[in-house]
């Protein structure tokens, strides 16, 4: 009789990670609301454990309602390491320019496309930095970031994970859907951790809970 492999995460550990992610994105939305006059409507975050080869299909399925997308991609490196993907429908960049009030002063100097990229990069920097930073703080880690970059894609399924992960590895995917109230903009934040982080993360999640023993 064959033995089932040990699950990498127990249901309890997944619940802890979901709560930590919830706190992380709460901090991120508050930071964004402080910088621009916007109210971020949050959803319940989800945690999924996937083979890296399943990632593109999973994320493509989540964002299937977006015809074209803009992606802010930023890697983070610590004991907690991986990549953050902030994904908007492609028209969000232009709407965000208007919310940030940049269109009048700067459009003359920049092309709209460049301004869109810069705006998305700024929003991505705030949301990803605050969320990943808070997660790292709660799990007692220190993080360095790569510079964010903006990708614009015609086919959402092409976006993800071309060379990000070894296809044989396992990834933890944390997903939050959010929207900006009264602005008709919604997007997804995915945090995808590398295989190498999983053992550390399991231990860090238990340490987090031990504070409440």
């Amino acid at each position, binding site marked *: 009789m064959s033995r089932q492999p040990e699950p990498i995460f127990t249901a309890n550990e997944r619940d802890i990670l979901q*709560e930590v992610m919830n706190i992380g994105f709460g901090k991120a*939305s508050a930071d964004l609301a402080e910088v621009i006059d916007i109210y971020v409507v949050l959803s*319940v975050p989800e945690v999924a454990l996937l083979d890296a080869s399943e990632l593109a299909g999973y994320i493509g399925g989540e964002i299937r309602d977006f015809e074209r997308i803009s992606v802010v991609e930023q890697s983070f490196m610590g004991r907690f390491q991986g990549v953050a993907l902030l994904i908007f429908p492609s028209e969000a960049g232009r709407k965000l320019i208007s919310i940030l009030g940049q269109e009048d002063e700067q459009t003359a100097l920049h092309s709209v496309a460049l301004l869109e990229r810069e705006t998305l990069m700024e929003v991505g920097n705030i949301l990803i930095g605050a969320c990943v930073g808070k997660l790292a703080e709660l799990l007692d880690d220190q993080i360095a970031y790569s510079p964010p970059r903006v990708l614009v894609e015609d086919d959402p399924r092409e976006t993800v994970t071309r060379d990000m992960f070894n296809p044989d590895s396992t990834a933890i995917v944390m997903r939050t859907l959010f929207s900006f109230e009264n602005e008709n903009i919604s997007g997804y934040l995915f945090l995808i951790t590398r295989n190498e982080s999983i053992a550390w993360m399991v231990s860090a999640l238990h340490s987090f*809970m031990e504070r409440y023993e």
Partner: protein
Amino acid sequence: MGRTLLIVDDSPIARKILIRCLPPDETFRILEAGNGEIALKVYQAERPDITFMDLTMPVVDGFQSIVDIRRFDPEAVIIVATADIQTKTLFRVLDAGALMVLKKPMSREAVKDALEKAEEALKDSERRR
């Protein structure tokens, strides 16, 4: 037996953390609910003294649940326990009738302070009756 607490949160971990942050020298009767719909049913059946309410939940969220519970019991003492720390969120829940907001991740000191404020609110409410 001390006060009855209703803890409303879709995360079992968040409920566990809150229970572990309660003052160890006091006794509470604890009720739990995983969303706002269940919370209203439990509230109507059990009439807890103090309700701790998360906001981001499936089925019926915490914003609506505060309204529903306060409609049933205008004197309900509700402490919002949330990771959503936007200023507008604070105003929204206070406008809806919450007593205060407890920020996640919570500490034992913050929970103790919140319970003291809730106790004052309960005594004020009892004096008015």
